[in-house]
């Protein structure tokens, strides 16, 4: 029996009723105010939205036996850099992770809720959701925020996971109405995504090892930061580097900062000689 913030004392029945094992569905009936994006927005929130933190570029690319998901570290507030070390890549469960672009606070809440959602299902049912099941669940959550999105509180996830049945990595993207759209080879979201995608287009090869893909996505993030003011590049002075994670048969693994530091250092030193980065053959 819990006493919830609205002061209503809840009965056991709320917890013991047989129901679909979705945490979000449970919260919707039990404590809807705990869901992200549930607060009432004023008639014109656009002024307030300028004061919110926005997260930017996320990239994902398939690699041999898995997928790499990475993001820059910058959050902006209008033309101000609001934060230099944001974590936009979040482990969702053992074999999947999401990154987000858009309203930072909502993104963080989505990441947290989605993590509980997957784990809740797993504990209730004694099995993990299929990768499609997870992707669909996330689509549902994104769609739940459509009201906020229409008023400017946009947040878009990029979902990547290891498909245990197929033995490969898979990537799913979304728009504000949901999705999921399955992406092949590589994908990117956020303000720098155009540049990151163009960069990956030239660098990505099918069947690259995870080490090579990690290098390619760091290059892509560098290119995004090079041309998009809202995307942060590797910050050598403050030792802040992109968050890079791999998801393979061994599960989710966030590369330690020492490793990303090395890769970023390699990319930056390469750019000292060739500011535009590695070039692809003309034909």
């Amino acid at each position, binding site marked *: *029996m*819990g006493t919830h913030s609205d002061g209503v004392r809840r009965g*056991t029945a709320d*917890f*013991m009723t047989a129901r679909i*094992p979705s*945490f979000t569905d*449970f*919260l919707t009936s*039990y*404590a809807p105010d*705990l869901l992200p994006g549930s607060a009432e927005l004023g008639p014109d929130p656009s002024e307030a939205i300028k004061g919110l933190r926005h997260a930017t570029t996320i990239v994902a690319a398939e690699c041999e036996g898995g997928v790499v998901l990475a993001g820059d570290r910058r959050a902006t507030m209008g033309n101000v850099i609001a934060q230099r070390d944001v974590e936009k890549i979040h482990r969702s469960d*053992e074999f999947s992770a999401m990154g987000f672009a858009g309203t930072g606070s909502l993104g963080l809440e989505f990441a*947290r*809720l989605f993590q*509980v959602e997957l*784990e*809740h299902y797993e*504990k*209730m049912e*004694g099995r993990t959701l299929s990768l499609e099941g997870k992707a669909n669940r996330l689509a549902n959550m994104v769609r739940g925020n459509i009201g906020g999105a229409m008023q400017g509180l946009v947040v878009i996830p990029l979902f990547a996971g290891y498909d245990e049945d197929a033995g490969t990595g898979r990537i799913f993207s979304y728009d504000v109405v949901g999705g999921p759209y399955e992406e092949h080879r590589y994908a990117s979201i956020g303000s720098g995504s155009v540049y990151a995608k163009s960069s990956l287009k030239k660098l990505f090869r099918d069947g690259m090892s995870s080490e090579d893909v990690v290098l390619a996505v760091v290059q892509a993030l560098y290119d995004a930061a090079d041309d998009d003011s809202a995307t942060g590049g590797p910050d050598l002075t403050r030792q802040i580097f992109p968050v890079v994670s791999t998801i393979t048969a*061994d*599960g989710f693994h966030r590369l330690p900062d020492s490793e990303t530091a090395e890769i970023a250092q390699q990319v930056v030193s390469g750019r000292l000689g060739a500011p535009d980065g590695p070039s692809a053959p003309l034909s």
Partner: protein
Amino acid sequence: MTMPFGYVSPEQAMRDKADYARKGVARGRSCVTLQYEGGILMVAPNASSALHKISELYDRIAFAAVGRYNEYENLRKAGVTYADVTGYQFDRADVTARGIANWYAQNLGEIFTASLKPFEVEIVVAEVGATPDSDQIYRITFDGSVSDEPGFVAFGGEADEVAEVLKERFSDGMSLSEALGAALEALAAQGNGQSAPELTADKLEVAVLDRARAHRTFRRLRGARLAELLAEARPEAEKEDSGEDSSGDSGSSGDSGSSKSSGSGAKSSSSGSKSASGKGKASGKSSGSDDDPPTGPPAPSGDGIPKK
């Protein structure tokens, strides 16, 4: 509550309910939960590999139950939901076994007094801490009584018999295989001398809360890993088994024919692992000298659980 003709005193009504619940619980076989050096071990006799008696509640908290399946399964799911809501609302670190145990106690107490039929269950909520001192084990009965059980707990129909053996065998800082050996010996003490089938890997449900793991510490032990641990836990019995499967089986079933033999059978197998049981008893006597290093069968390195 609807009454038949005539007056039934509240005392009598409560007694009847308690008897009813107790009988229901007694139908199931007892389970044990105990500390080992690397965390908390839970062992339950369970022939089903799908309908669990032991489950994960949260990152560092597990649930074990005996009694009526649909009732404790309902409680388990409610507990998972309660834990997930609490952890989502506040922080993952704010979900504690104490909180969940109290929540269960409140609910079971309410069900016991307010509803016609009490729940025929007995549950244990255990939390693995950063150090053995901060481990917590709570036992909650059908009427909502909670007890804090340091070190180990036996629960279910013949909890007293099981607990007695466990008390003898339990010592602080046991390795996983020693703890499993103690648990199996304790579980063999039940059955009231009736046929107690040998607890083989496929008739056991075993899980641990592994102190060393990050995030979610709950792990089930099964298959080859469990068989290997069982072999370590009772080397003698396994030797017989591997020598000739049928003879090992018939030996144990022959044992269980007479009234005290299931106990004596267990004892003989444990006397094979002299170092383990000897150590258990010695430290049991010294009551509290828990700093002796365990001298039982060699522990697998670390917790012995394969890590992904």
